């Protein structure tokens, strides 16, 4: 430890203030001012942007996004936990290979992976062409909520699996043996020992899926078409099309708040050790 080497970080501290703190401050400022900011002297503070957010139209957008993210997260959890469990049970030789194979698709560009589903689900896509071959009519598989959910699960599944897998593989195997030794069968051991101990991983996974899911804009845009608005596409619209930075900033701030609140709710589940675990029974 060398106290003089503190100064190494000073340039970056400056960088952080310019490129991390200041932008967020600006966003906040825009969210509480009106559009006519041509001159510093004519700044008008207002809460209208936030009021507009609570308009039924935009609340609908918010609820739709949260729903979508929740459903995607639940699918990821239901599909992902077994995957993490199965991989953690594989013997070391093959385990790394399986993990690698599982992670490999993540290395493909996210847009390509999302675009691939357009190829599969579209009117002229694989599934519909197959159905048509059998003489069945085409289904509207693309440009709806289901397509978005499929896209989200496809993209975010590894983010759910990896933290759970880490938690499971770090678990002391003797705990499972101890549980059996004390009379618990496989089912009871899973419910009373394995599941609770993997909970931190589950919480991590939920956070790592829910957060990008709720703020996502590529997946809803490509797979959901322009039919409905979601928070992500709304923000993009406001900033890059309409140019309404004020309202856009307010929506962005509200989205960050939603994420913050959900994270603190989730973190509650992690720290509930005070009960001593009697609630397990």
């Amino acid at each position, binding site marked *: *430890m*060398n*106290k*003089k*080497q*503190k*100064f*190494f*970080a*000073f*340039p*970056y501290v400056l960088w*952080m203030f*310019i*490129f*991390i703190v*200041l*932008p967020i401050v*600006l*966003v906040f400022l825009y969210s509480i001012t009106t559009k006519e900011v041509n001159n510093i002297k004519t700044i008008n503070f207002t809460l209208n942007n936030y009021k507009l957010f609570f308009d039924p139209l935009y609340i609908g957008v918010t609820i739709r996004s949260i729903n979508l993210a929740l459903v995607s997260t639940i699918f990821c959890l239901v*599909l992902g936990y*077994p*995957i993490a469990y*199965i991989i953690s*049970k594989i013997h070391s030789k093959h385990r790394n290979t399986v993990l690698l*194979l*599982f992670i490999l*698709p993540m*290395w*493909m*560009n*996210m*847009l*390509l*992976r999302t*675009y*691939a589903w*357009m*190829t*599969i689900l579209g009117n*002229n*896509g*694989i599934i519909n*062409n197959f159905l048509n*071959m059998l003489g069945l009519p085409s289904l509207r598989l693309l440009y709806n909520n289901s397509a978005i959910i499929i896209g989200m699960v*496809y993209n975010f599944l590894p983010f759910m699996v990896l933290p759970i897998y880490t938690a499971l593989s770090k678990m002391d195997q003797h705990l499972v043996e101890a549980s059996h030794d004390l009379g618990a069968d496989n089912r009871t051991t899973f419910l009373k020992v394995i599941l609770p101990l993997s909970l931190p991983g589950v919480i991590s996974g939920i956070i790592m899926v829910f957060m*990008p899911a*709720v*703020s996502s*804009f*590529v997946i809803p845009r*490509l797979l959901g078409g322009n039919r409905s608005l979601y928070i992500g596409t709304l923000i993009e619209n406001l*900033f*890059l099309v309409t140019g309404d*930075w004020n309202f*856009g*900033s307010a929506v*962005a701030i509200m*989205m*960050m708040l939603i994420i913050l609140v959900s994270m603190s709710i989730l973190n509650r589940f992690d720290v509930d050790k005070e009960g001593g675990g009697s609630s397990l029974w």
Partner: protein
Amino acid sequence: MVKRNLHKIYMGLIFVFLYAPILVLVTYSFNDSTSRGTWGGFTLKWYIDLFNDRDIKTALYYTVIVAVLAATIATFIGTISAIGLYNFNKTPKAIMVNINYLPVVNPDIVTGLSLMILYLSTNMRLGFLSMLLSHITFDIPFVILAVMPKLKSLNKHLTEAALDLGATPLYALRKVVIPEIMPGIITGFLIAFTLSIDDFVISFFTTGSGVTNLSIVIYSMARRGVKPTINALSTLMLTVVLILLFLINKRSALVEGQKNNGGH
């Protein structure tokens, strides 16, 4: 026994789910027909189209340049700053580290739009510089994330030994600390590079004047409908990834072999 087979079936289905879309892209990159249902014969014309596509070539150029520059600069700044932050007192350190992690915790759309506001509010033109600065900004926290643990687990006695033997603190830094944390530095660089190569949202918001990257080009093409050249692009990118992974595997097997034979 039954359980084991059930496991295998389930994992099999999952892998089908994961790889089917990719395989579809690869297959159709050779398909001599624009319709995605029918097979029109084997062809390489989409690859030829790809090589002739100026947009894609420009995008590839920018993607690689930005990734290399941003990752390198971020690794340099990040490593030095990690060392600096490591020596901070408790409270300032906590504050700085938390601010540092904001780009990691924030959704990338927020990072992207906030940077865009910063640039435009200061009348800066969006282009190469703005994109590069943004990439550096979100790369550095990941470098610090990779280097800090290595600093924490560094054996303090090593530095003390160096000083005891007559080294100045700076010399000890160069010859003892940096080599020890090098794995973290390399990891940080690789993470930063991967993030920059793949980035879409932040680049989308902070670029302009014709500067694009691969992700942005793919997005524009995909929005206009499906284009077979994208399939060809996917296949090529997949091949690059596979080669990289193969090389990494070979390298770590080589390192293992060296270790087992007593090293050099």
